């Protein structure tokens, strides 16, 4: 019992058949999940990247603006609309309280997203596909996305960054 020392010989007491079966079963499931995570890097198409560059808010801001100037096609919501070619670099900047710019992408094409923050932590959340990443200042997080559905999407912030947090929203349009 829980309030007395175990009876003599407790260490050598054999494990009951059902308890043993359960432990083996649970272990097998745990190992399968481990294999699944490793295996998904080989067969799966959704794996968080770990390609990162060290940067600074100033440097990243300059890089992003240079890129936007190059591929800018208009303005919407007070920010540039950028339409980068397939297989190119895309820059997304999080700052209190904006996600910039608006992006126009093509379905089935790959884009190297460079995402960083100029100040606090921000959450990079694409809706409604619901993919979520954490963005830090000083780290240029490179995620290669291939949109597999078309339409209008939103980028929202889901890491608390002050009272204007809920106004951080931008748009991604994916064309067929």
């Amino acid at each position, binding site marked *: 019992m829980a309030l007395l020392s175990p009876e003599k010989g407790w260490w050598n007491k054999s494990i009951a058949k059902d308890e043993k079966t359960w432990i083996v079963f649970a272990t097998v499931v745990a190992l399968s999940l481990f294999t699944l995570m490793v295996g998904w890097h080989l067969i799966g198409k959704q794996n968080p990247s770990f390609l990162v560059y060290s940067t600074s808010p100033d440097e990243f801001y300059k890089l992003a603006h240079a890129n936007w100037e190059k591929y800018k096609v208009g303005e919407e919501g007070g920010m540039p609309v950028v339409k980068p070619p397939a297989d190119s670099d895309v820059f997304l900047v999080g700052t209190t309280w904006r996600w910039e710019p608006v992006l126009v992408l093509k379905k089935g094409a790959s884009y190297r997203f460079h995402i960083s923050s100029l100040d606090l932590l921000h959450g990079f959340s694409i809706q409604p596909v619901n993919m979520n990443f954490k963005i830090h200042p000083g780290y240029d997080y490179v995620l290669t996305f291939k949109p597999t*559905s078309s339409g209008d999407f939103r980028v929202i912030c889901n890491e608390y960054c002050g009272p204007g947090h809920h106004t951080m929203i931008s748009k991604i349009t994916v064309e067929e």
Partner: protein
Amino acid sequence: MFLKCDITGFNVDKRALPLIKANAVVSVVAFLIAIVAALLVLLTRWQVVHLLPVDWYYRILTLHGLVALVVWIVFWEMAGLYFGSTVVLNARQVSPATGWLAFVLMVVGTALVAFAVLTGRADVLFTSYPPLKAQPVHYLGIILFAVGALIVCGLFIANVMVAKKEKTYGDGPLPLFSFGLLTAVILAVGTLLAGAAIYVPTFLWSLGLIDSVDSLVYRLVFWGFGHSAQQVNVAAMISIWYLGAFLAVGGTSINEKVSRTAFLFYLIGINLASAHHLLVDPIPSPSWKVVNTSYFMYLAVLASMIHAFAVPSAIEVAQRRKGFTKGLFDWLKNCPWENPAFVSVFLAIVIFGFIGGITGVINGMEQTNMIIHNTIALPGHFKGTVVGGTTLTFMGATYYLIPLIFRKKISMYGVAKAVPWTFAIGIVLLSAGLSTLGYLGVPRRHWDITFSGGPFTYTYPPIADIFWVVAVLGGTIAFLGALAWCLVVVVSVFFGEPVRGKQDMQLTMSSPPPPDTERHDSRYVAPGTFALTIVFMIAFLIFVTLNWGWLSIMWEVK
């Protein structure tokens, strides 16, 4: 120095009693504040009411996180640690004065933090991720609180060492309940050291003595504190489950070697598993993530699955020896359902396993973490672990502290019996509502999901409205249950009838069942429990499959 308890026969150190009482009373006050804050937060999140203005929403959310997750739970655990290292071991309290020093540090720390948060000096939420900065008084409060808690951990270890030396609990190993608590204490020491490693530099940064704190390093070390703390709660909770199995039906772990090894797994596995908070952060590599969160975390998960069998089987085997042998579940039907402490433990096991455990493992997998990271599914998950599991368990265990420590009968016993059911139903609905909303992409910690004032708008699918109603309904029911519990506890402790002896005990105090003479290796001793755990595993595998299905239809990313 000692009193002989006329109900349990334990020798109780008179100097430990006021320490237990003081910590328990503060924890209940904190609990009351936490649930009021919870309701305010929930009614703000629900856009139909949208109660608080934006600054107060984040302020009350900060308060709720700190008071619910830290103040309520840790003060209650301090009371539990004094109880588990003196009363149930017949042992004396080492240096009660140090205990009072720790208590004062923790109360002062709490007061400083509450002051900082409520006066807008710390609008940084529970996690206080830099570069978000609070005023120094906030970090100072947390550090004082942690030092107090660390001192109590030291006292627990000292008490146990003295008890062992003086053979107050006999010659054998430490009883399982105290053994589990010792695991919690060892985890707590590591946890609090990680806390010091991150809060001290952050405090210095806030004072202007350090230039910056790297946000990634902060998150790495912070979760060595923040998540390990939850494992402390789990170890304490499961210790109480074993105690509950004994008090309710006289149940004993069917194999102490297995139960104790499982506690050891927690020690080995969990600090590494805190890495699962960084699954979608830049820098950590897939191998770092997989090694830390799967290979090692599964040791902790496996431990929980072992307890998930060991605790119910302790109850089942005891009941079967008492003659409830018919079919698979006759033993369960004949459990003491009129004992609200037992009901609390039972419901906590179910909620912790089916909701907290299942969502937890999926959240902790490298790829599926992308689906739920920072969505409101996260609060949905820990409503299943730390609220439906730990909090409900502590609420139930408090019912035993009232007659045994405060020596008062439980007032309004009918209400007391309704509390665990009400609270559990509320939390299940709340958790289901929040989890589903998270899968629909609703962010956590967000004042306005209509994004008013932003350059664009976004509207969540209409089905989200239904799940908000489910969450609010559940949250309100849970709030009422929790409020009723506070009322029962306060009225009992301050105005209750005194307990004069065994005849005034309203809760069961079982004795062990007749001894077992058969060997165990060749047969199924707990077929009912075995069936229930298989049902659990099927539910788990279904949910895993669904998540990986959802993952596979997302945009591609690498």
